[in-house]
């Protein structure tokens, strides 16, 4: 690829990228630890904490019940409880689900791949449709295409993901595509505005005036300017897709962690919910950090 002034493709070996990695990992770790503490606090304060079904066993004597309670007494201190929770977490033990009567880690291991599959498919679909439509509108400057796109996006932005899921069930459409429909309007709107702003920059206008073709203007002049902000959107769309996974999986009966979270909420299984929230937060944080880092690499290489 020919090197041109003002625009260089990013390289992963850039010093800025590598030196940012430990800082980023530390940031994620601290965020997860604080998030974990908040989660543990929620679990500790949840109604029913410290109550065990075993205590209802009529065969147990008062001493046995007392002994059972004594084993849980140490958990009454929030910090001790968090320390124990954290040490269990380090061993991969996420505790037991009250509603499912099985280890949380087992349920998560079974269901997370399902959700990730839907997520990847939905994001790929939403990004390609939204970005390509935005590019087509900005480059062609066709008002009817813009109007059509805006109307479609306007309607989609007004529909809750749960309604879309119900309509998918009604139409017997493949449910996994729903996440694509949820992220599509956000990507389209943001990309169109960003590309339109970039295409109005003086250097782009000069390039056009010099007679450069649409494709060359897009690839060499518009996209490099818009790329860092577009990449930052990637992390945000992961979070949006995870959120939409709950109604999609709950209403379309897909066995992912969204459905698990919904069942846990209905069964008031706070331990399961907090662990799921932590896992989703971790995935979202990693996605956000990666997209931020790639965006920064683009910025560095542009200067």
């Amino acid at each position, binding site marked *: 690829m020919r090197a041109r002034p003002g625009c260089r493709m990013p390289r992963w070996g850039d010093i800025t990228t590598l030196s940012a990695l430990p800082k980023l990992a530390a940031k994620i770790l601290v965020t997860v630890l604080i998030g974990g503490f908040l989660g543990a606090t929620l679990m500790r304060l*949840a109604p029913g904490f410290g109550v065990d079904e075993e205590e209802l066993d009529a065969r147990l004597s008062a001493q046995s019940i007392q002994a059972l309670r004594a084993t849980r007494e140490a958990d009454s201190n929030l910090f001790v409880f968090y320390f124990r929770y954290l040490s269990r977490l380090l061993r991969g033990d996420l505790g037991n689900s009250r509603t499912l009567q099985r280890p949380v880690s087992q349920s998560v291991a079974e269901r997370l791949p399902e959700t990730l599959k839907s997520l990847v498919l939905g994001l790929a679909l939403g990004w390609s449709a939204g970005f390509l439509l935005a590019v087509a509108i900005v480059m062609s400057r066709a008002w009817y295409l813009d109007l059509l796109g805006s109307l479609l996006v306007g309607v989609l932005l*007004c529909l809750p993901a749960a*309604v879309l899921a*119900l309509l998918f069930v009604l139409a017997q459409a493949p449910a996994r595509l729903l996440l694509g429909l949820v992220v599509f309007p956000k990507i389209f709107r943001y990309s169109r505005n960003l590309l339109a702003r970039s295409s109005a920059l003086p250097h782009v206008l000069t390039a056009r005036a010099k007679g450069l073709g649409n494709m060359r203007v897009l690839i060499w002049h518009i996209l490099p300017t818009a790329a860092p902000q577009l990449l930052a959107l990637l992390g945000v769309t992961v979070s949006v897709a*995870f*959120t939409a996974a709950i109604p999609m999986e709950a209403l379309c009966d897909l066995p992912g962690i969204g459905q698990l979270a919904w069942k*846990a*909420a209905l069964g008031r299984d706070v331990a399961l919910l907090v662990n799921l929230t932590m896992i989703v*937060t971790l995935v979202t944080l990693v996605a956000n950090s990666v997209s931020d880092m790639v965006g920064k690499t683009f910025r560095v290489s542009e200067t």
Partner: protein
Amino acid sequence: MKWARTTAIVFLLAVSAACLLANFIAPASYAHQFRDEPNAAPSRQHLLGTDDLGRDRFSRVLYGTRVSLLLAPAAALLSSLLAAFIGGIAGFAGGWVERCVMAGTDLFLSLPWLFLLITVRALLPLNVSPIVSVLITFAMLGCLGWAGAARIICADAQALAQSDFILLARASGSDGLRLLWRHLLPNLKPILFAQFWISVPVFILTEANLGILGLGVAEPLPSWGSLLRELEGFSSISGQAWQLIPLILFILVVSSFHLVLTKEELPI
């Protein structure tokens, strides 16, 4: 697009007026059951028919819209005020205060919105009245929705804190609180106003999602979430098209909220 904005405002005003006058317009109470007429088709007595429990759908749409249209702006106001307080102080103070507050905001933003909401919802007591459940739902939305707006307000407050008129005010002896109250906050009004209008449809949509999942407002009080939940029993569009009217009204109201802000007021 001035005409679209005007139309949206007029439409919102008309819908709000109809909902506020629901006690006079609605032919029946939202909870009253016409037990002989479950799932009735539209008629002169029941303009939008009845639901599977025999409740007048038109009345439920009016009362449900009232719940969402009154409480979503209240939740948006709460979240905007929280954002103004947190973001304003962080931006104005700068230094370690800003870094700490923004780290907390980042943490809050990393938490998946709906996961967090259903976790908090699961912690709340079960035996609450419908009115309390609706208040809890929207208060939760208001308390958890401030983070994004706080970040924007912090950036704006930071820029304002370094502007010439603030420097002049400092030079003429204005202290911290006076500067914040008299000079900074009035200049943050436009951004707060935009954040408020952006939050309203977001909260309406979130409540609808929670309601459809059965985690929102408790029955028999209607809200858009519980009204849209009826679509679960919907089998064909041609046979029961009137059941789609709440959905159409919902789309119109939410899109009207989107149209209220001009292009310049909207973030990119």
